[in-house]
């Protein structure tokens, strides 16, 4: 289990123990964390699972694929250097304690 903190658009935060190998999107939506829509269920086609990764630890997360970068161009909320699609980030032990912030809107 990898501990990840999700900060919802309302500002409230939820700590989840995410099974290794699960995507952060999957952990968030099955546990009812607000603000991630994930219309495509993790197929990397919808860009509605946009999150901001703790900028301090951005380098520890595997970099985005070309597909993900292209989708990030079209996210609804502000695109920032630490923008990622949460369905493309897999929980690994290195990410323990990571904080993920969810933007105001996805669609």
């Amino acid at each position, binding site marked *: 289990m990898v501990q990840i903190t999700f900060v919802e658009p309302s500002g409230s935060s939820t700590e989840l123990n995410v099974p290794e190998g*699960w995507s952060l999107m999957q952990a968030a939506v*099955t546990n009812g964390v607000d603000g991630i829509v994930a219309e495509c269920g993790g197929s990397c086609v919808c860009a509605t699972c946009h999150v901001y990764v703790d900028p301090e630890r951005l380098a520890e997360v595997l970099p985005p694929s070309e597909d993900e970068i292209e989708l990030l161009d079209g996210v609804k909320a502000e695109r920032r250097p630490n923008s990622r699609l949460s369905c493309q980030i897999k929980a690994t032990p290195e990410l323990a304690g990571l904080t993920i912030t969810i933007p105001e809107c996805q669609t």
Partner: protein
Amino acid sequence: MTQSDPHIVIVGAGQAGLQAAETLRSNAFDGRITLLGNEPHPPYHRPPLSKAWLTDELNPGQLSIRDVSVLERKNIDFRAGVRVSAIDIEDRSVLLHGGDRLAYTGLMLATGATPRRLPHNGAAGDAIRVLRSREDADRIALGLKDCAERELPLIVIGGGFIGLEIAASARKLGIAVTVLEAAPRLLERAFTRELSDWYAQLHLSHGAHLVFDARIASIDATSDGATTIQLADGRSFVAGLAVAGIGVRPNDELAQAAGIACDNGILVDDCGCTSAPNIVAAGDCTVRRLSDGTLLRLESVQNAVEQGRAAALALLGTRKPFVATPWFWSDQYDIKLQIAGLSRGADSHVVRGDMTGHSFSIFHFRAGRLIAVDSINAAKDHMLARQIIGGEVSPTVEQVNDPSFNLATLRAK
């Protein structure tokens, strides 16, 4: 409790029904919400059923959309395995299979759709499978294992999205595949001829066989569990597993029986309102009347989610029309297709990128305006299309034709 305590009943616990329940809660509705679904599972994703689920690349947790505990926490009374058998509009109640009655103050119909079946005698039993539910997918997955063991092919009837995805999944598993298509090309209604041909090449290059203009004359289950399919031209195919993907029929029977207006789907406006007061509908079971009077039926996750949200808000008295650009996707082999907009009625088409390669987009225009874009491994074009279609400025045919023109400059600020 009095009759008028707010109680919203949602029939159908798929994408649309779930979205509606959660939208009600997140918009401060604090009355009762009952979410009734006749399947034994909490809401799950259907798109993977023809894709990664068949190739065993997903765990069951990844199929589920929400954990039941989340629904409990949100005080959504989710009941699995419960079928609604009638709506009593006068009495404002629904009748459950088994005889119980449930009174509502607002009702949402999100009953989805049912795969069409072939009319042939032999197609009735297990000889020809269809794919809609998790159980359907699990039976198909078993059938594929059987095909692999007995070295028998999969026959897919219908070269639409679901059929072609199943074909691609089977090829990934090394199973021989033949697709029987009644039309002269794949996805005739959705694709231009050149894109149909491109997809045909894709399947051929992965070793699938394609048969066009296929008229099925008869279907027979053989005693050893195989299925023989005979075409009108005399050709005959033996399948270890036969699956039909020939479209769906919207589940509008409940609404029809209650006198709610239907026309191959429950008729709704752009907020999901039906012809009956306090009854809304969303998702695959609906058909939308557009402002120009034409009817639009969409079968997509986006439509279910956005319509589910709009319909829930309508029940709360807020009209927030669903106007987003429609979009859809399909995964076959390593090819990601994303479609933005609706290409029906297009009068010209422009290819951007290189169709001999594996990344390009087809831009569809009507009367000089961009109405749809089909992107093949070109997520950037797709995202851009979703932002500019239906907006104030449309690119011109010349601009799209010019590879040096940067389409991003047209994005609404």
